[in-house]
């Protein structure tokens, strides 16, 4: 009796907690509402399964609790029941998986017109690199890193010329413009995480990863690291500003060019002799 009652209380309390929780998704700031929809759908499907299974469990405990006169039913198998439940579960799984795969397919295919920005992590700072207007990002490798070239941009790649390097400043993005975010690290694994974007991806030393996103509202967002990267991990923060085209143009005009940076400090001479690409 008491046990069945407690199971019922757990069921009701869990559902009420879910309905009235103050801890829920942050207001979204990117067009990944498809991710949120899939998440909500998963809550509905799993919530229904949770209620059905726990309610049936509680009912069984109430209905078939021991008494002196009770004797259990003897029925080793019921093929029919097992088949029906197996089919129902399979349908539920397909119902969850199909939209998940569709969303993933769009997650890994950035639109062709997406702008590019590179994010580089280093314990425990964020660096950004943008191509010059109409240009491309030059190649990069940790072996090119020097004091003057903190991102390891390949100085022999013609595309590197004119790349804009943001060292220590905020990152700015245009609102409503898709952007492919290229990710790299020069020491340990980091993860570029803006909760309001929903999207994230690890940043690896030695290889490049990416995701893409279209910011949908202007404002200032906090960048966090979501992969444990050493004792400074909680303090690896950055700031993202999503703004209109006009404000963005103003910001980008102030950014420093890779060649300008290096000429000022005559950095080419300091390049390491190994690992150069001609």
């Amino acid at each position, binding site marked *: 009796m008491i046990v069945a009652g407690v199971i019922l209380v757990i069921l009701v309390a869990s559902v009420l907690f879910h309905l009235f929780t103050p801890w829920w998704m942050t207001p979204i700031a990117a067009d990944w509402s498809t991710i949120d929809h899939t998440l909500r759908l*998963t809550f509905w499907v799993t919530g229904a399964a949770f209620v059905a*299974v726990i309610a049936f469990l509680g009912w069984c405990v109430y209905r078939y609790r021991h008494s002196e006169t009770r004797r259990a039913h003897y029925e080793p198998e019921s093929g029919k029941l097992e088949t029906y439940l197996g089919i129902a579960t399979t349908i539920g799984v397909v119902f969850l998986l199909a939209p998940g795969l569709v969303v993933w397919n769009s997650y890994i295919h950035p639109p062709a017109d997406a702008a590019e920005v590179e994010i580089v992590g280093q314990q425990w700072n964020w660096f950004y690199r943008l191509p010059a207007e109409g240009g491309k990002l030059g190649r990069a490798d940790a072996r090119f890193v020097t004091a003057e070239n903190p991102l390891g941009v390949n100085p022999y790649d013609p595309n590197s010329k004119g790349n804009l390097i943001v060292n220590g400043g905020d990152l700015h993005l245009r609102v409503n413009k898709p952007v492919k975010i290229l990710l790299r690290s020069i020491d340990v694994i980091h993860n570029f995480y803006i909760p309001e974007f929903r999207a994230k991806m690890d940043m690896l030393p030695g290889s490049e990863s990416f995701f893409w996103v279209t910011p949908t509202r202007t404002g200032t967002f906090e960048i966090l690291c979501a992969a444990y990267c050493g004792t400074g991990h909680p303090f690896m923060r950055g700031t993202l500003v999503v703004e209109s085209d006009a404000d963005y143009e103003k910001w980008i005009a102030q950014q420093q060019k890779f060649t300008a940076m290096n000429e000022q400090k005559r950095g080419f001479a300091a390049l390491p002799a190994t690992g150069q690409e001609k």
Partner: protein
Amino acid sequence: MVEVRAGEEGFHPDDFEDEEVPHPRSWWTKYVFSQDAKVVALQYAGTAIFVGFIALVMSWLMRIQLAFPGALSFIDQDHYYQFITMHGMMMVVYVLTAVFLGGFGNYLIPLMIGARDMAFPFINMLSYWFYLLAVLILLSGFFLPGGPTGAGWTLYPPQALLQGTPGSQYGIVVMFASLCVFIAGFTMGGLNYVVTVLQLRAPGMTMMRLPMTIWGLFIATIMALLAFPGLFVASLMMLCDRLLGTSFFMPAIVQNGEQLAHVGGSPILYQHLFWFFGHPEVYIVAVPAFGIVADLLSTHARKNLFGYRMMVWATIAIGVLSFVVWGHHMFISGMNPLFGFFFATSTLIIAIPTAIKVYNWIFTIWRGDIHLNVPMLYSLSFIVTFVVGGLSGLFLGNVAVDVPLNSTYFVVAHFHMVMGIAPLLVIFGAIYHWFPLISGRMMNEKLALAHFWITFLGTYAMFFTMHYLGVLGVPRRYYELGQTAFIPPSVTSLNIFITVLALIVGAAQLVLVYNFIRSWRHGEVAARNPWRATTLEWQTPDMPPPHDNWGPQAPKVYRWAYDYSVPGAPRDYIPQNQPEARA
């Protein structure tokens, strides 16, 4: 040694000869260097529980830091990350794996299949001493300069090997060395369990008459034998990178403005190796729990296990599938994103046999005669927590839904619920269930009930609510959240709530220890077969069972393990070794 050709046509249990076991000659060989699987089991379980309490204290310290940042001044960042690393690795490998396979496996496999001991008793004893050595090497990290490693329990490179990570000098070396010794020791025990189940079953004990406990332990051991080598080679390669200057996992890295002497290695390769072990490991812990809980439910509901054959095949399916789902730990690791499709699909497929198991547990008590004693309560609480943890796994396994939740407290809540709390509740239920067999006495029921309600309700409230921190996006592995724009102050309130519960639930485990020790000496003397169970371990000539388990006559098996409430039978159970009622 007996050769069992179980299942062949025309055999009769009386055709088989008995086996002999080596008898101990001194106190040392009886209680310390014992080759008796029952003693080895208690050694394994005792050591694992000791390690478990160390890991529990570390979880307290972490929780105190999360709820009251800076309250304990000695918990600095280095210590915090050392605590999470050691808590995780200890609980997963040195506690849960060791308790289920080393503890319950050793105690129950020979008894429940009707054998006198393991197939290779000496190797079995050695397995425990390797395990103890692994534990000592692991704990030595606490006393070395720099302390144990603080690389996170997954020990990802390059982080784990780089200066600045706590314990990168010695801690990381003893961590991997300890894992290698553990795996060597486990392999000795594991081969034993498999061979014993295959070769030493009592006459008449066909595979399809094995209790689910044995199926769970058997499948989990096979999985462990196939999965642990992945961790073993990863550990050796990490040791080479750390000590010999190789670059298996280390690409070109710049640290503190200096180029390190590594180039070309792949950090992702380590993650593949680690999770090739790591995901089956989840089921290595869960599958024995599945088996044990099936037997507890059946025994205490006086009803046959529902869908035995389906349960066996679902367990085998889970075992096989668990080897092709590891990539769901790496959806946002930067591996080729096309893998996401495959691993999401395989992961959600594994939900189907798992769900079937849940249905069959509940259908086992449906139309039963449910005795709400302590083992049954623990079994019910296992179903509740496993359902929550299993369902939250459907979020993380479905690749697109994983993206926002990955690396948040949703993950922490999920895996604690599904592979921490749920299997632990089974361990507790199993302790109360088999304590009379091991000690010959009953445990105190009032203390057991207090322990049960605090543990179940406390852990449920902790980890159910914690999921929602992850939905909000609160990242895990943060020493302190500090000022973060999107995190409201109410998160601190929830963190305090969880921490207070963790302190209470942790302290309540002392009730179990007290009950265990007190009942061992002063408990009420147990009746023979106090739960009126069908399985062989309760049919021994003495309780606790003698050294060779069966005395003069080893058992012969005539029926499956679930003849409860058989229509027409005088009692509501028929032991497996009771011959067919012939006229």
